[in-house]
């Protein structure tokens, strides 16, 4: 029987895959997707804990996190449109006008 540890491990794996995507990729879009991946990993943890603790609060949290993820997605998409319109690029490395 898979127990809490297994779920948490999967969750951690997904989290770090998301993190890796975030820092390894130059494509803004894929960075957004990586954040979504991380949030999902966290959700999995919440639900696993919820099952482990036998209380539903975790589910509520996941519910909230999905809402937060949705609004983040909205903003991020708006930003992508804005950036692409202004700069015609999706390469994160191109955004380095300000530094120091």
């Amino acid at each position, binding site marked *: 029987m898979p127990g809490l540890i297994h779920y*948490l491990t999967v969750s951690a794996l997904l*989290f770090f895959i*998301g*993190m890796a995507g*975030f820092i390894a990729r130059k494509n*803004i879009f894929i*960075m*957004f997707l990586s*954040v979504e991946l*991380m*949030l999902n*990993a*966290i959700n999995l*943890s*919440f639900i*696993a*804990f919820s099952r*482990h*603790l036998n*209380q539903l*609060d*975790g589910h*509520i*949290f996941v519910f*909230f*996190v999905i809402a*937060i993820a949705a*609004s*983040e997605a909205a*903003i*991020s998409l708006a*930003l992508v449109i*804005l*950036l692409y319109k*202004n*700069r015609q690029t999706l390469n*994160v490395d191109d*955004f380095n*006008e*300000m*530094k*120091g």
Partner: protein
Amino acid sequence: MDKLMLFIPYLPLALAILFGISQLLMQVFIPAQNRRWLTYIALLEMSALSLVTILAYLSRAQIKDMPPGMQNVALANYQFLDGFALFFYLLLIAASFVTLLISAHYLERENMPRGEYYSLIFFALAGMMVLVSAQHLMTLFIGLEIMSMSTYILVGYQRENPRSNEAAFKYFMLGSLASALLLYGIALTYGVVGSLDMSAIQSFYQTHPIGPLGSMGLILILAGLGFKVGAVPFHTWTPDAYQGAPMPITGFMATAVKAAVFALLIKLLGEPFVILRAYWVELIVLLSALTMITGNLLALVQTNIKRMLAYSSIVHTGYLLMGVSALSIQPDSQIRSALLYYLFIYVISTLGVFVALTHLSGRGEKIQEIEDFSGLATDYPFTAAALALFMFSFIGVPPLGGFFAKYFLFSEVLRLQDPLLQGLAIFAILNSILSIAYYLRLVVTIYFKPVNAIWKQAESRPVSISFLLLVTGLITIWTGFAPFNLLGIIPGLTPLINWLQAIVV
């Protein structure tokens, strides 16, 4: 009637949201040539908000009189009863008010739309209120997100300005990453404790040791919040976002946002996690030390005033973190009031600086290099004096507020007689010595260097700017001469509150 009373603690928050929506609606319904009214209404609303906040605070006695069951309902997940919250509410409202006022000037100059801007400030304020008052980590996280989202958008509000885009983008992306880390920390904490209620966490850790998973949760939460306050090494977004954001928003981030997150940090480490002090104190000390020194080193080599102020705000974060590291269970500890006092002075002085800069930077914020401010004092004596005053306050020259802010903070930190904190305090003082260099450089540039030609075509100073400079300046001086104890309540307001109470009851 009684049931209505239940609503009272939420009143400021509800109104903030309502006012935000009202601005949105008015944006639609008020014709373009009358949009100036939006500003007046927004200011009026902000003033009303502060009044309501005070009134709500005053009626706390009634809530306390209610039967326990109802009280629980009234206070679930949310606490707005103590002076701590009142202080932050008023401080945040004040910061928002100032931001609004200078934004009005700024938006007009830069020819930017008002409606969404004002409503986003209100929403950000609402988020901060949640942040300050939340009793539940999830609520808190939502508040944090509301605040952050609003700020991201405000940073990128100058859509045509590539810097503004870039700033918003960087801030947002890193913010999402940090939010994810923070949320992971919250999740782990939930798994260990079984609840995200702060009192539950507190009582859990009073009886249980912190396990490895709980530790990881704590670390991730600290890192997430460290990002929001701009602690090194999570500070990297700060200078870029500060530089790219519209000037009033830079001020808003440096003051309100920072204060709100510190409120949260003080609350988290002071209440639910205070029992784990031995575990987190070293981390905070490390962050604090790193933050101070890095901020200082980088502030020195800046030529752009916004970036310099960004790093300066990082340095102040370091000092504040030092204060946070002294949070303890000692009953007579006044570290909270010292922290609050420091935040208060810092916010007021910083606001003053940004008021002046908003005015001086000129159309399109063309004037951003420190050297551009050469000889400002000759033609703008008042603004120059105010800027010098704030710089001296940052350095900690008495009798300005900044001095006593440092004084109380350091004295409380030292009082614990903890060698680690003593060492940190010494390190902090050495850092403030380093910081003299760049604060002084601005004053020297303003006063002693030959006059820059741009100041000759002097633009008249709006009344609002003069008023705000005067007020912030006077507060900075006043707090130096008559520093007050902020524990529990703002004692400076005590007589006023007593009087109001007499009227209300």
